[in-house]
């Protein structure tokens, strides 16, 4: 295969700059006369802001101070709802909420200034956990949120689940919880801002330049031509730099406007952990009916998300959670009731998976429980219920695309030695001495809908294209950001492929809102599939013009294409643009929650093998097979890397990463006690692809960036079921939950077999549908 085409393991286009230290991240930038900015934050989770007192004995003369009254536009972060202030005004709704901004050239002086501000607040009762919200403990006066504690409610209904409970052979009920999880990009949030000739420019670590631009237009009261947003090299995002950078950009821009100087704001790790968004904690109560043979007859799920203090993106996260909650299973009677609740914690937000991991965890835990009750192997129960082509999902979407979930699952079972190991561990665990490790193997089957949910892509109306410039270099014009996932390389390969050009002819524009069109945010596993398709179409247009106008032969080799590009470029710069066209066969009814929420899905079957140390409760993931079908793989090397990294995050989500909440704030906001997997905590994750091209992305490529977050934790928990002979329902599953679980089943009568014992996390209370 020629290099840099679709399917080739091309080198990352920006690899050299990242290996030499030449890549400039935001903290590596500086400007003449630059000052630093910091944020004064709320010490309390909720209260009236009575006053911000500046110590008169401190020298404030050179310190820039910005409060809410200095905001020239609207003191609101424009997202789905305009409920979140840029700087709290009057009432504070979460700990760490920004109250005041300070700027000075000397960071040490700034730290002294921080200590010279006294925040006076009158504390108000708040609702600090999802369970409190569910128990209707949210204070009513003043309400925890203007729209009430319930920020969003969604119901998906197919058939009549209520008709099934009475006659079914088995009804299982379950309640599961997932904790908050920190994105933990290794580069903390950071932004620079300056004002020149009436234009406010921000340059920083971000995923979505046009989100930030819109935010600045609203907050600063400026037209789009007066705001410019440039992405710096970004050290990881994972959703954490989807919506949050808008606030930081607004803060930096306000300080720049007030001081007239360039401003840099870089969070340290503690501030980043305590103040920025995390994955939504969830609590799902579900009930399913089965026939004796294991056919899923009915499914009813009550899915709850903790949104935190403001709406941010929670309605869409809830939507994706609810849409993924029924899993890849056929079921005639399904109801999913999803609710996102306001609480007085920092707002939860986008994190890779975007609700799907919570929904997927609930259904996969439920399937494992049902398998145990039915006396079936969990893999066998899944095989009896998997969706097939032509089946209809809970929203009535007909699975039109070519798919073979049974084949995928069988391949994963064979590749992991699932059946053999399952039997082997069953015996070994029975014979194990008190100090011997207990082993287990577990499967998760799942999917991830690629692209924006519902009518989202229609609303985004993305645009991307190519510009032919001096020397015959074709520049990709897109707002899609390279954040480590490989977007720049993949888009280059797509353009090379459609043009037949060598990689040297292609260049990727820096995402800069004054230079590139709005190709939408870099989120939702949409860049390769949606933006890649636009680049592919634009490149085909250019190729056609090369053939028509310049007489390029249809079978021209890459050098001939490069030469034709150089010749055409002598006529001056030209552009080929493509606009999003919604496939007419994708129909979605936002009100009824009926139709095709996604044009296509990536499918996966993951198998985890674990060993639990009965003395310490520690779990080692000894083997992990991640098998997926995300259509055509554009770059196998980068795709493997992305899945490997996602599985690692999923193992952290399952076993390690606990946000400890205390009084509405993160009590472990340090890397020494919020622990993510190191090289020593992970096995050699094995990644395999099946490639069934879809009729949608470039050459049939689907989105896959978020996929590994959805099924990793359920696979690990399923393996823990076998190792422990008991089941856990809350993640992260830490040694302190695993150890008592193991001890509870030490008696020989209760080990393994149908009807696993249940061990709930210490926070769990109340039965299903309580």
């Amino acid at each position, binding site marked *: 295969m020629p290099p840099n085409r679709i399917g080739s393991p091309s080198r990352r286009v920006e*690899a050299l700059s990242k290996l030499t230290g030449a890549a400039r991240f935001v903290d590596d930038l500086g400007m003449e006369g630059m000052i630093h900015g910091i944020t004064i934050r709320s010490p309390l989770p909720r209260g009236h802001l009575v006053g911000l007192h500046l110590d008169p004995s401190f020298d404030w003369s050179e310190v820039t101070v910005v409060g809410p009254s200095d905001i020239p536009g609207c003191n609101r972060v424009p997202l789905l709802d305009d409920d979140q202030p840029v700087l709290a005004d009057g009432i504070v709704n979460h700990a760490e909420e920004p109250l005041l901004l300070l700027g000075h050239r000397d960071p040490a002086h700034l730290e002294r200034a921080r200590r010279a501000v006294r925040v006076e607040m009158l504390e108000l009762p708040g609702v600090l956990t999802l369970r409190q919200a569910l128990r209707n403990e949210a204070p009513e006066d003043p309400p925890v949120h203007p729209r009430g504690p319930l920020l969003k409610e969604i119901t998906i209904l197919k058939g009549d689940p209520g008709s099934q409970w009475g006659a079914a052979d088995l009804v299982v009920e379950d309640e599961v919880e997932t904790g908050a999880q920190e994105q933990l990009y290794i580069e903390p949030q950071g932004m620079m801002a300056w004002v020149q000739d009436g234009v406010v420019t921000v340059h920083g670590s971000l995923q979505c330049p046009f989100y930030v631009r819109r935010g600045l237009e609203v907050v600063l009261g400026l037209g789009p031509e007066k705001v410019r947003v440039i992405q710096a090299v970004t050290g990881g995002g994972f959703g954490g730099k989807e919506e949050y950078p808008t606030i930081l950009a607004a803060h930096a821009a306000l300080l720049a406007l007030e001081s007239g100087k360039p401003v840099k704001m870089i969070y340290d790790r503690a501030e980043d952990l305590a103040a920025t968004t995390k994955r939504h904690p969830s609590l799902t109560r579900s009930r399913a009916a089965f026939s004796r043979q294991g056919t899923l007859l009915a499914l009813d799920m009550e899915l709850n998300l903790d949104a935190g203090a403001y709406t941010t993106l929670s309605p869409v996260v809830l939507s994706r959670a609810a849409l993924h909650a029924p899993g890849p299973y056929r079921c005639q009677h399904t109801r999913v009731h999803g609710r996102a609740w306001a609480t007085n914690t920092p707002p939860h937000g986008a994190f890779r998976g975007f609700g799907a991991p919570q929904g997927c965890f609930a259904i996969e835990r439920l399937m494992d429980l049902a398998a145990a009750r039915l006396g079936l192997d969990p893999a066998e129960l899944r095989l009896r219920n998997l969706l097939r082509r032509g089946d209809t999902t809970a929203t009535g979407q007909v699975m039109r695309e070519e798919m073979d979930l049974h084949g995928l699952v069988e391949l994963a079972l064979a590749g992991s030695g699932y059946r053999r190991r399952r039997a082997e561990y069953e015996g070994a665990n029975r014979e194990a001495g008190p100090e011997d490790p207990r082993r287990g193997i577990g499967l998760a089957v799942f999917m991830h809908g690629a692209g924006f949910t519902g009518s989202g892509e229609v609303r985004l109306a993305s645009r991307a294209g190519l510009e032919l410039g001096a020397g015959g270099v074709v520049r990709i014009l897109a707002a899609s950001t390279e954040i480590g996932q490989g977007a720049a390389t993949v888009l280059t390969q797509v353009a090379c492929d459609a043009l037949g050009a060598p990689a040297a002819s292609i260049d990727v524009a820096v995402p800069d809102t004054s230079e590139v069109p709005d190709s939408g945010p870099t989120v939702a596993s949409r860049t390769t599939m949606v933006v890649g398709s636009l680049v592919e179409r634009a490149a085909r247009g250019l190729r056609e013009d090369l053939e028509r106008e310049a007489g390029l032969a249809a079978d021209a080799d890459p050098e001939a294409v490069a030469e034709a590009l150089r010749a055409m470029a002598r006529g001056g710069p030209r552009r080929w643009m493509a606009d999003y066209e919604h496939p007419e066969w994708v129909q979605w009814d936002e009100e009824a929650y009926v139709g095709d929420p996604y044009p296509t899905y990536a499918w996966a079957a993951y198998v985890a093998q674990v060993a639990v140390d009965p003395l310490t409760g520690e779990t080692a993931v000894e083997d992990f097979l991640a098998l997926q079908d995300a259509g055509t793989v554009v770059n196998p090397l*980068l795709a493997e*890397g992305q899945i490997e990294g996602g599985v690692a995050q999923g193992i952290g989500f399952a076993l390690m990463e606990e946000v400890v909440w205390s009084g509405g704030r993160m009590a472990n906001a340090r890397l020494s006690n919020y622990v993510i997997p190191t090289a020593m905590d992970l096995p050699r994750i094995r990644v395999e692809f099946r490639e069934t091209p879809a009729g949608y992305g470039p050459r049939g490529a689907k989105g896959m960036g978020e996929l590994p977050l959805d099924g990793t934790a359920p696979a690990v928990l399923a393996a823990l079921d076998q190792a422990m002979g008991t089941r856990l329902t809350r993640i992260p599953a830490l040694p302190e939950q695993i150890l008592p679980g193991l001890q509870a089943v030490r008696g020989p009568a209760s080990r393994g077999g149908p009807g696993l014992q249940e061990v709930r996390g210490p926070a769990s209370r109340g039965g299903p549908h309580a």
Partner: protein
Amino acid sequence: MPEPVAPVRLRMRVNGADHRLEAFPGERLLDVLRLLGMTGVKEGCGEGECGACGILMDGRLVNSCLVPAIQALGAEIVTIEGAATDPVLRQLQESFMERAGAQCGICTPGMVLAAGALLKRRRDPNEAEIRRALGGNLCRCTGYVKIIDSVLHAARRLNGAGEGHP
């Protein structure tokens, strides 16, 4: 009020060049190196947990956020900016590009230097040894597989082996 502390005069060798500078007793080597223009030294946590600020000081891997600058008096320091002149580090750079060991790139300088410290004392490490040697360097993108493959690839090349999958 404590007495203002006077800066200390320092001399250190950074990537082969002599630098004379002043640093306050509490100042971190991380900040001093970044002020010298070595912005490949990254701050990820400021408490020695993530390894993004890793450098080689007299051949040893250290987290420069935990090292007072004055402790580097007379030291020989190598950052990622100086990697190209060192055969082991140069091969690691090449192997990380070849085997996709870098994704977002923020942990990469520290990762390369940590791997370099390993390969300088152990020519042919196995995977477990590599995992131990990189245990102090956090990466959130890769799951470490491609990083380990990059190090294995570099070791193979340095030991004179040709192309071959690690």
